[in-house]
């Protein structure tokens, strides 16, 4: 499936990766994100606390990007997202000028904070996006609210497949309900994605590229676009 050089050989590949490959891909993705999105909030690797019965060499953990603001969009273009960190929230998308005095009362819920985690699913052997959202006042957002923040097309799919597209499940590391993008189709579309790329001619692609390609699709579901250069640049390999 995957050779020692951490490249994916297409001949027998089913679109999945091992947990160790996920770790490699996750680190590469976070590094690349930093390089191409230095002004945005950064992904960080959160290791799972070591348990006494797990193997010492096991890399268990997840990628985390927290406190991303998705201002409630009232415009047609749902795809554009204001990716800003906590330090500099730019609420420039508001049509109405914001009166700070009434911000809490009237606009308290305009800014939606999103937390995104990327976990590895041992069952599906693919990355899974976990997310949750809350208003500035700490009130968690229900799926109906989240739906309004999603690109129009995602909202449509959500209506059609309520139980199989975005579902609320337990975050395996945090023991709390989070939303997930259901991973059952991931390996299929990942395979298609990689097969049609130029890398096909080379007979393989770097494992490090996996999460970048994955997020280029998954990010669009939630309205985050990654810079084109990030996709284009295949890294050191």
């Amino acid at each position, binding site marked *: 499936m995957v050779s020692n050089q951490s490249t994916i050989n297409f001949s027998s590949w*089913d679109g999945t990766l091992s947990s160790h490959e996920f770790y490699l891909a996750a680190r590469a993705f976070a590094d690349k994100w930093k390089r191409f999105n230095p002004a945005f909030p950064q992904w960080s690797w959160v290791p799972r606390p070591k348990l*006494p019965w797990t193997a010492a060499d096991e890399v268990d953990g997840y990628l985390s990007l927290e406190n991303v603001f998705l201002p409630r969009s009232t415009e047609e273009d749902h795809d554009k997202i204001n990716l800003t960190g906590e330090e500099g929230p730019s609420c420039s998308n508001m049509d109405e000028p914001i009166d700070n005095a009434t911000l809490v009362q009237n606009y308290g819920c305009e800014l939606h904070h999103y937390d995104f985690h990327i976990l590895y699913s*041992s*069952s599906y052997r693919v990355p899974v996006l976990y997310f949750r959202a809350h208003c500035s006042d700490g009130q968690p957002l229900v799926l109906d609210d989240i739906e309004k923040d999603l690109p129009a097309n995602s909202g449509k799919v959500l209506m059609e497949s309520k139980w*199989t597209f975005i579902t609320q499940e337990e975050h*395996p590391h945090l023991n*709390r309900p989070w939303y997930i993008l259901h991973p059952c189709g991931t390996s299929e579309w990942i395979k298609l994605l990689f097969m049609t790329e130029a890398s096909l001619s080379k007979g393989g692609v770097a494992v490090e590229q996996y999460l970048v390609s994955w997020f280029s699709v998954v990010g669009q579901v939630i309205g985050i676009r990654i810079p084109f250069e990030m996709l284009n640049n295949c890294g050191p390999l």
Partner: protein
Amino acid sequence: MDRGTEAQKYIWEGAIPLQIHLHESEVTTLPPPPPALILAPRIGYLPLLVPLIKPFFSSTLPPGVDTVWFDYKGLPLKWYIPTGVLFDLLCAEPERPWNLTVHFRGYPGNILTPCEGEESIKWSFINSLKEAAYIIIGNCKNVMNMSQSDQVELWCSVMNGNLEAYLRISSKLKLGPGGDEFSVKLNSSSSLKSRQSALETDTTGPVKTGRIPVRLYVWSVNEDFDDLEDAPHIDNWDKISYINRPVEIHGEDKYFTLRDAVKTLLPEFFAEKSLSDDEISMPEVGDERGLPSEDANSMRSAEEAGETMCQRVESCCPSDNAEIKLLRIQGIEPKLEVPFAWVVNNLMNPEHFLHICVYIKVPEPVAM
């Protein structure tokens, strides 16, 4: 026609006697309503009992909309874990009847995923079945492409505990043997092929029969206890490590046992010691005398065996190591040398996952 194995029948008929109390904050009448006594199927889910429980309490509830949830000694119960697994996990020493508290108001949405009644449970079940299918055969097309009527029938068979109907529908999914051959090898594709059914659709890609869907619940205890009766109470889900990882079987000819399976899931625990197969005495699964409600006799012998096992483990491992206090599946503690294929085929839940509860004693507090 496949009528299921003896063990499967016991599990499908197995039920836990519940004594359900209404939470005092929701009692608006005097005297308070008496608790409801009810048999909860092992393979079922707690919210499915609500239509049976509601009449006991409806006259005393405060006004409002029902958002039903259960707790055991203050611990909110996760509705998507089968009732039998909750019982095995949270009652070290089985409590009969099992005293639960029901709440019709104030759903703890920060701890539990929301439950919109039967529809939520059905989809949680179907999504688990999809996950299991993906693990076993590498895709979930068979589950996704089920006809609407088959889907309904499958779900009803689980809700009603109808094993024969279940086997008839689920055999179409070709998720592996459900047969009673003790020596079935999980990794031999012939066992799959032998169960062709009328609705034949070719599976694409390689058949991966070497992966078994397992959900493992590990409770790590710091305090030592000799008797399960003295086991501390689990008051927080953070004390349970949930490991959702398939067991991968390598090697065609190896006689793969339950111990081998546990070893792949908890490698560190088995790293330094080798438990000898014949020295651990555990009750025979086949000796179970199944009753509609759980058999107290088997529980007693299981407890004794648990003690034997603990002694054995203690005598063969360094004191600074973690030790397995208890390994429980479907209310019994199977011998670790039982072939894993038998355990899976007979003790798995209808969504094709084998739920294993393990108590591990760790020497010092673990930061979780």
